[in-house]
């Protein structure tokens, strides 16, 4: 199967939460380290490392994010059930009633 091109819904939700949590945590940690050591550069490097790590975790479509794939009905199965009325037909009926 390989890596899917698109992530499933649950995966997208998870990846967004992960991205926000990781980035904010790294920012807080980087700021505290930089402030404690009195080094602006250390803060920037720590945060940059955190951003790269977050990118590796969230940008590629890892299999973890594809555990809840959508199961579409097979076309042959769909044939067995009556088709819903088309929107066009519904409006015609309403207009004739009036």
């Amino acid at each position, binding site marked *: 199967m390989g890596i899917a*091109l*698109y*992530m499933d819904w649950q995966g*997208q939700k998870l*990846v*967004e939460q992960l*991205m*926000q949590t990781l*980035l*904010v945590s790294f*920012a807080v940690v*980087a*700021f505290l380290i*930089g*402030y404690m*050591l*009195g*080094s*602006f550069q250390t*803060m920037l490097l720590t*945060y940059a490392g955190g*951003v790269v790590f*977050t*990118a590796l975790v*969230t*940008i*590629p*479509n890892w299999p973890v994010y594809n555990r809840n794939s959508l199961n579409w009905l097979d076309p042959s199965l769909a044939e067995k059930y009556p088709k819903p009325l088309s929107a066009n037909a519904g409006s015609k009926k309403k207009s004739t009633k009036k």
Partner: protein
Amino acid sequence: MHSFGYRANALLTLAITILAFMCAIASFSDNFNSPIPTAEVQVLNINWFQKKPDGDDEVSLTLNISADLQSLFTWNTKQVFVFLAAEYETPKNSLNQISLWDGIIPTKEHAKFLIHTTNKYRFVDQGSNLRGKDFNLTLHWHVMPKTGKMSANKLVMTGYRLPETYR
């Protein structure tokens, strides 16, 4: 968040927005620093003092400038620009400022210094007002932070007087 490009875009946008916040907080943290800089300037010698052919007074000084500006430096300070100005009043202008010496301090380690120098820039008056003139030597500094607003302050040293006669 469904495709590679959307996730990359979301990550970059959020990362840079957070970075801007971090810089803002870093700039704000400078408020917790209350600097207590000290400076002292001695005029060791009046090398020469004369009236130029165009009528303006010019004087050459030998100075001893000692200062401790280490407390100006915080983790968010890139560099500090300092200059020493002679300030005095004349009938025409209530404030004359003449920069005599300047320097750029790149790190906290260089912020405590003692410099023995003649005036780096010429001390020329616009006119002939310098004989017997009382003047102040003011050490001005401009703090350039890594992020945030530049700030400036000064330390005024009074009680200097030029001789009554040319020499």
